[in-house]
């Protein structure tokens, strides 16, 4: 019994990006209810040299989009990083999810042993498809996703682990 790379990437990105979108709703509601300027949350950071909330959401989307594109062997679409509102960030998530749906799962599955070359800061790095997904892309994706959640929690937005997890696919019918 075995797994495929598409299996190991697409439903995870879908689960977690959908949960991130709902977390954004809650952040927006929180700002409205407490009369907090949304830009305070959008620009909030856990520490002065860490990325702000907006950037964390952008990067989480980019890890889903870039990783999936590279595995599928298609050009990585470039999104402009100009979101200034919760609505714009939600749109970016929706755009990312829609893009993922266009990818050929067979092409992704065939990338297990293929060399994937990608930039890390100023360097160019190569990994085989499987370790690239499991050991580079996944930890990074979760890092930025968890960081976005942590910034909101740190600012008092009333969200819990259930919001972070979203809807878990595969619960068998009881």
């Amino acid at each position, binding site marked *: 019994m075995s797994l495929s790379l598409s299996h190991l990437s697409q*439903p995870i990105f879908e689960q977690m990006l959908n949960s991130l979108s709902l977390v954004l709703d809650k952040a927006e509601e929180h700002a409205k209810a407490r009369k907090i300027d949304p830009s305070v949350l959008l620009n909030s950071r856990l520490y002065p040299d860490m990325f702000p909330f907006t950037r964390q959401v952008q990067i989480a989307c980019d890890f889903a989009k870039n990783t999936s594109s590279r595995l599928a062997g298609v050009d990585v679409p470039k999104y402009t990083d100009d979101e200034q509102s919760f609505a714009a960030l939600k749109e970016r998530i929706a755009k990312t999810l829609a893009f993922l749906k266009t990818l050929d799962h067979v092409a992704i599955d065939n990338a297990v042993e293929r060399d994937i070359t990608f930039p890390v800061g100023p360097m160019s790095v190569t990994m085989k498809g499987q370790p690239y997904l499991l050991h580079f892309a996944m930890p*990074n994706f979760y890092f930025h996703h968890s960081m976005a959640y*942590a910034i909101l929690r740190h600012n008092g937005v009333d969200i819990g682990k259930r919001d972070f997890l979203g809807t878990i696919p595969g619960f068998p019918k009881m």
Partner: protein
Amino acid sequence: MSFSLSQACVPVITQMLTSLRHVVDCASKHCEEHKIDPNAILTARLFPNMWAFTKQVQAATTWGCNMAGRLAHVDVPSLGDDEKTFDDLKARIDRALAFIGSVDTAAIDASVDRVITFTAGPNTRKLRGKDYLLHQSYPHFFFHCTTAYDILRTNGVQLAKRDFMGLPPGLITD
């Protein structure tokens, strides 16, 4: 092309817990260097109703052991929850890594579709092995690894993404 469930499990947990051990070590050295009472860091939280650093590390190691043990269909050893120092936490991570390294990977591979029963708070839940790993355990596991890191960053411990990532297996260097 496909790969096995154990490949998506054991090396990922090993990578992240090994880097978590390193991160704990950095926190310990930071305290020594800056004459900070280790308890200030061990009990630090991102928000009053979130878990403290020690508990985040405990949760990450517990999730690591649970996912490997449950998928391998063996009893998961109790790691205890009585760590009081950075050294205690490192020893806990070592115990977790030793257990994860000892599980039978063939037994994990056979669990792709086996129903795993687990408790989530007061509820008993069931998921097939692959869903349990990818959609339940991964998010929790990465969540606690990231939150532990976040707590240290907000407390000024000098860490960077590469400390969080550790050394991804499969990096091809020239």
